[in-house]
C-alpha cells in the first residue's frame, strides 16, 4: 500500500523531475521523448493527486494536517521558516485541479508544439510552472508560499516570453514580470510586518489570531508608532496586494491580456489553474486572518467587484479571441475575489462566500482551460487570433463545436452546466451579505458574460467562412489537441452538479475568531432571475451576430463607431496610461534624478573607495618582497603588536 506521504512527495517531485530531465537531458536532443516523458510524469502526478484526494476525503476530511514539515531556515528569535506540505480540503482540491489541468495541457501541447523546434524547453518549463504552483498550494506558511509564489512568477515569465524572437512576446513577459513583482514587493513587506508582529509565518497561527490580544501593544515603524492590531490590518492589506497583482485585479490587470503572447497552452494553464488563481488562493488560504482584519475584506470585495464589471465590458468589444477569453478570466477572477470579500455581514462572517469562491475556482478551471485549448485549436486552423478571419468553423469541427458550447454554457451560468452552480452561490453570497450594489453588478456582469461569450461563439463557429483556408476546406481536428478538449468537457458539464454541497463541508471549522455563519438560506427566486438575465443576453447575442438579420461585417468593423465604443475597445486606454506614467513620470522624473545622484555622488564615493582599497592592496603586496629576515621580523613585530593592541590584561 502506498502511503500518503509517498503520494505527497510524488505529486511535488514528478513535475520537478520532468523539469530537470527535460531541461538538462531530453529537451535539446529529442523533443518527442521530452513530450512523452512530460505527459507520463504529469499523468502520474495527477494519479497520485487523485489517490491522495481519495484517501484524504475518506479518512481525514475536513481536518488540516501536514504530510511533512521540515525546518528550512531557523531565524533569530524563534522565527522558523519551514518547508512542509499542508493538506486540507482546499489544498487537496487544488492539487487535483492543478495536476489534472497540467496533464491535459501537456497532452494538448504534443499537438500544439509539434512544429516548434524548442518544444523540449517548452515541456521543461511547463512542468516547472506546475511544480511551482503545487508548491505554493501546499505551503504551510507565508515564507514557503512566497518562495513558490516567486517561482510561479519566474516560470510564467519564461513561458510568456517563450517565443523570445517576437518583440511583443518579450515585452509582454517583461510587463507581466515587472507588474507582478511590483505587487510582490508589497506582499514581501506584508510578510515581514506580519511575521514581526505575530512571530510566526505559519498559516495555522495566523488563521487563529485574535486582534484583541494585540490592541494594547505598540510597535515603532520608523515614522509612526501604531498598535500591533493596526499593524496587522496594514499587513493584511499589503499581503492582499500581492494577490491583487498576481490575480491581475484592476488596475494591475493590464499584464494578463498582453500575456496572450505566449503559446496558447501556456495561456490555458495560466488562466485556469496556476498564476492568476494564486492570488485568489492566497486570500482563501488566509481567509480567517483577513476576516479579523476589519477593512481588508471590504477592500477585497470592491477590488473584485470592480474588476468583474470592468473586464466584462471590455470583453464585449474585443476581436482577438484570446483577448476576449483573457478579459473573461479577469471578470471571473473578480467574481471569486469579491465573493471572498462579501463574507462580512456586520460583525458576523458568513462562510458561504468562501465556499462559493473555492467552488468557482474549481469549476472555472475546467471550462476556462477548455476554452483556451479550443481557442488554440481555432488559431491553429486559421493562423490568426482575429475573429475577422473565423466564422463557419462549426461545420468542419463538430467535436470542438460541441465542447465549446458546453464550456460557454458553463461560463454563462446556465443550468445544468457547472458554472451555474458556483456562480449562483457567489451571487447569493453577495445578496445574503446585504451588499446590494455588488449583488446588482454581479447579476449585470453575468448577463455581459453570456453576451460576449456567445458573441465569440457565433462569430467563430456560425455564419459564412471568412478565411480562405476554411472556405477551401483545409480544416481538421488534431487528435492530440482534441482529446483534452473532449475530456475537459466532461468536468465542465458535471463538476457543478457533483461539487454542489461538497464545498460547504470544506471550511475547516474552529478557525475563525469572529462569530460565524456556516450556511445561509437559499433565495428561491434567485436562480430564475440569473438564468433569465443570461437567456436575454443570449438572445441579444444571437440577434446581433447569428440571426438571419445580423450584420456580421458591420459588427466586426470597429472603425465606424461611437466614442464610447472606441474607448471600451481600446480598453479604456489603460495600457497607454501606464506607458505615459512610466515614460513621463518614472523614466523622465524619478529615474533622471536618481541617475544624477548616482553619477555624481554614489559613483564618486565608489571610485574613491575602490582607489583607496587598491592602494591598501599595493601596500600589502609591497610587504611581500620575499626577504626572509623581514618575514622573521614580522613574527617579533606581531607579538609586540598584539601585546599592546590585543587588550590583554597584562
Amino acid at each position: 500500500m502506498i502511503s500518503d506521504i509517498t503520494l505527497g512527495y510524488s505529486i511535488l517531485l514528478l513535475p520537478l523531475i520532468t523539469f530537470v530531465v527535460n531541461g538538462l537531458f531530453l529537451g535539446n536532443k529529442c523533443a518527442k521523448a521530452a513530450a512523452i516523458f512530460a505527459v507520463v510524469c504529469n499523468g502520474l502526478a495527477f494519479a497520485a493527486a487523485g489517490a491522495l484526494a481519495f484517501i484524504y476525503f475518506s479518512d481525514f476530511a475536513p481536518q488540516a494536517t501536514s504530510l511533512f514539515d521540515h525546518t528550512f531556515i531557523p531565524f533569530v528569535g524563534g522565527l522558523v521558516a519551514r518547508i512542509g506540505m499542508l493538506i486540507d480540503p482546499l489544498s487537496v482540491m487544488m492539487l487535483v485541479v492543478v495536476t489534472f489541468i497540467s496533464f491535459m495541457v501537456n497532452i494538448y501541447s504534443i499537438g500544439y508544439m509539434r512544429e516548434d523546434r524548442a518544444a523540449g524547453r517548452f515541456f521543461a518549463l511547463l512542468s516547472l510552472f506546475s511544480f511551482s504552483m503545487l508548491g505554493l498550494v501546499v505551503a504551510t506558511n507565508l515564507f514557503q508560499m512566497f518562495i513558490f509564489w516567486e517561482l510561479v512568477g519566474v516560470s510564467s515569465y519564461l513561458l510568456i516570453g517563450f517565443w523570445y524572437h517576437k518583440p511583443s512576446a518579450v515585452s509582454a513577459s517583461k510587463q507581466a514580470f515587472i507588474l507582478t513583482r511590483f505587487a510582490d514587493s508589497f506582499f514581501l513587506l506584508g510578510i515581514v510586518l506580519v511575521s514581526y508582529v505575530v512571530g510566526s509565518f505559519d498559516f495555522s497561527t495566523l488563521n487563529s489570531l485574535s486582534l484583541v490580544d494585540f490592541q494594547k501593544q505598540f510597535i515603532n515603524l520608523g515614522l509612526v508608532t501604531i498598535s500591533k492590531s493596526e499593524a496587522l490590518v496594514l499587513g493584511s492589506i499589503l499581503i492582499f496586494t500581492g494577490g491583487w497583482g498576481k490575480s491581475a485585479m484592476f488596475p494591475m490587470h493590464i499584464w494578463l491580456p498582453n500575456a496572450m503572447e505566449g503559446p496558447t497552452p501556456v495561456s490555458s494553464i495560466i488562466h485556469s489553474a496556476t498564476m492568476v488563481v494564486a492570488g485568489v488562493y492566497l486570500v482563501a488560504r488566509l481567509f480567517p486572518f483577513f476576516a479579523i482584519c476589519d477593512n481588508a475584506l471590504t477592500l477585497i470585495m470592491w477590488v473584485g467587484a470592480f474588476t468583474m464589471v470592468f473586464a466584462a465590458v471590455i470583453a464585449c468589444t474585443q476581436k482577438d479571441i484570446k483577448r476576449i477569453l483573457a478579459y473573461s478570466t479577469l471578470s471571473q477572477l473578480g467574481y471569486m475575489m469579491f465573493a471572498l470579500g462579501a463574507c462580512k455581514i456586520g460583525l458576523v462572517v458568513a462562510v458561504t462566500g468562501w465556499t462559493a469562491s473555492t467552488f468557482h475556482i474549481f469549476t472555472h478551471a475546467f471550462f476556462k482551460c477548455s476554452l483556451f485549448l479550443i481557442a488554440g485549436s481555432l488559431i491553429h486552423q486559421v493562423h490568426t487570433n482575429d475573429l475577422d478571419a473565423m466564422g463557419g468553423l462549426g461545420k468542419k469541427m463538430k467535436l470542438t463545436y460541441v465542447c465549446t458550447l458546453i464550456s460557454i454554457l458553463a461560463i454563462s451560468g446556465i443550468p445544468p452546466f457547472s458554472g451555474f452552480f458556483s456562480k449562483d452561490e457567489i451571487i447569493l453570497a453577495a445578496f445574503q451579505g446585504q451588499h446590494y450594489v455588488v449583488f446588482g453588478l454581479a447579476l449585470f456582469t453575468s448577463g455581459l458574460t453570456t453576451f460576449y461569450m456567445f458573441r465569440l461563439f457565433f462569430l467563430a463557429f456560425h455564419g459564412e467562412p471568412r478565411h480562405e483556408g476554411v472556405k477551401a476546406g483545409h480544416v481538421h481536428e488534431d487528435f492530440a489537441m482534441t482529446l483534452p478538449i473532449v475530456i475537459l468537457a466532461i468536468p465542465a458539464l458535471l463538476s457543478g452538479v457533483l461539487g454542489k454541497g461538497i464545498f460547504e463541508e470544506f471550511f475547516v471549522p474552529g478557525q475563525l475568531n469572529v462569530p460565524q455563519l456556516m450556511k445561509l438560506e437559499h433565495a428561491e427566486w434567485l436562480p430564475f432571475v440569473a438564468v433569465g438575465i443570461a437567456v436575454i443576453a443570449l438572445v441579444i447575442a444571437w440577434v446581433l451576430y447569428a440571426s438571419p438579420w445580423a450584420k456580421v461585417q458591420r459588427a466586426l468593423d470597429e472603425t465606424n463607431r461611437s466614442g464610447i465604443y472606441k474607448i471600451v475597445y481600446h480598453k479604456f486606454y489603460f495600457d497607454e496610461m501606464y506607458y505615459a506614467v512610466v515614460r513621463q513620470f518614472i523614466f523622465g522624473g524619478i529615474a533622471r534624478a536618481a541617475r544624477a545622484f548616482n553619477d555624481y555622488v554614489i559613483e564618486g564615493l565608489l571610485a574613491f573607495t575602490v582607489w583607496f582599497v587598491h592602494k591598501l592592496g599595493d601596500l600589502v603586496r609591497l610587504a611581500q618582497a620575499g626577504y626572509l629576515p623581514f618575514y622573521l621580523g614580522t613574527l617579533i613585530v606581531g607579538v609586540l603588536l598584539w601585546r599592546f593592541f590585543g587588550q590583554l590584561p597584562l
Partner: protein
Amino acid sequence: MFNIPNFILPDVLLLIFPFIVIGMRLFVTTRSQLPWRLANIGFIAIFILLNLIPFSGGAERIFISNWKVDDFGVLMREVLIVSALLGMWLSKDYFEHGADKKPQMHQIAEFIGAIAFATFGGFTVVSACDLLTFFLGLEIATIPMYALAAWNKRDQYGSEAATKYILMGSVATAFELFGFSYLYGFSGSLHFSEIQAAVASGSSPLLWIAVLFLFCGIGFKLTLFPFYTWAPDVYEGAPTPVTAVLSVTSKATAIAFLVVLVYGPLSPIQDKMAPLIALLAGVTLFVGNLGALKQSRLRRFMAYSSIAQAGYIMVALLGPATTAKTAIIYYLFVYAVSNYLAFFVFSIIGHHREETFQSLRGLSKQNPSLAIALAISMFSLAGIPPLAGFFGKFHLFFSGASTGHYTLVAFAVLNNVIALFYYLQLIKAAWVDEPDGHLTPLRLTKRQREVVILLSIAVIFLGFVPFLSNNIFAGFTN
C-alpha cells in the same frame, strides 16, 4: 588479544597503514600502482570507520586515560581524512608528469605517507588531554608539511619556499613551547582539566603571556596577520597538491588547536580573550582580502584567499562553544570541498599551461564544464547563496554575532564585497575574456573529471540542503 575499543580503530589504522604503504616499496617496482591503491583503500576505510562511530552526546570517550575521542574530534577527523584523500587524488597526476614548469615528482608512497602522518598529527591535536600530547600532535602535523613543501628537490623555488617555511615554522614552534611552559608554570600541571581549574580560579600576567605566545605561535600556522608572510611564497613555491593540502589540512589542524584551547583549558577566560580574537580575525581577513586584489598567479591568489578565509573562521571563535564548533566544522567541510575544487581546476590548467589568470581566458568556450566548476567553487568561496559557502559563512557570522560582536560581523560582511571582487575576476577571466589562441588545449583524465563532478555536486548539495547542518551536528546540541 588487545582490548581495543571501536572508536580508536580509525586512529590505529591511520597509524599503521602508511608504514605498510611505504614499506611495500621494498617489494614492488617503482611503477607499481599497488601503494597508491592500498592508500586509497586505507583512507576510505578510515573514513567509513569514522562515520560508524555514533555520536556520544557530549560524553567523553577516553582511551588509556590520555586519548579523548569526542564528537568534535570525530568530525574533525572526518574533515582531515577528506582533505587527505582529496590531496592524494590531486597529487596523483603530478607523479605521472610535471606541471606548471616544475619537473615530475617521484616517490608517491612516501608522499602519501607524509600526508597520512600530517593527518595523524591533526588527529592527535583533537584527541589530546594534556599539553605534551597536544604539542606533539601539532609537531607531527607540521614536520611532514616541511618535507612536502620541498618534495620537488630539483625545483629551486620549491627549496626556497621550504627553507622559509621551516625557518619561520621553527620560530613559531618556539613561541608555542614558550607559551606552553608559561601555562605550565601558571597552573603547575600539564593536564587540561587541571589547567582549566587553575585558569578558572584566577588569572595572572603569567597566564596572559602564555595566551599571547600561543596565539602568535598558532597564528603562523593559521596564517593570521602578521604571521602569514610565509604563506604566499610557500603556496607559490610548493607543488600544487602540497599547496592544496597546506591550505586545508594544515589550516584545519591549526583551527582545531585553537578550538581545543579556547573551549577547553582557556574557556574560563574566553570573554577576556574576545578582543584579541576579534582583532586577529578582523585584521587578518582585511589584509588577506587586500592582498588577493591584484594577483596574477593562481596559487598566490589562493594563498591570500585562504588567509582571508582564516580570518572568517576566527570570527566563529567568539561564539559559545556549541555554536562555534558547529559553525567551524560545517565551514571546514564547505571550505575543504570548495578549495579542493578550485585546486583541481587549477591543476588541470597547470598540467597544460602556466598557473596564471591569463591561462583561464576563454575557458568557458574551450571547456564549459570546467568553467562551470570553477564558477561554482569561486562563488562558494565568495559566499554566494545558495552555494555551500554562503551557509558556511552564515554559520560563522552567526556564531560571532550570538555573543554580540556585531561590529566585527558587519566588518566581515563588508569585506566580503572585496572578496567578491577578486573571486569575480577569476570568473571574468574564464567567462568574459576572449580566448587566447596560443593556449594549449586542456585534456581531463578520467579521475580528474570524476572528482571535479563529485566536488561540484558536493558544493551545490551542501548549499541546497542548509538544514543538513542541523542533522550533522545533532550530537552537539546538548
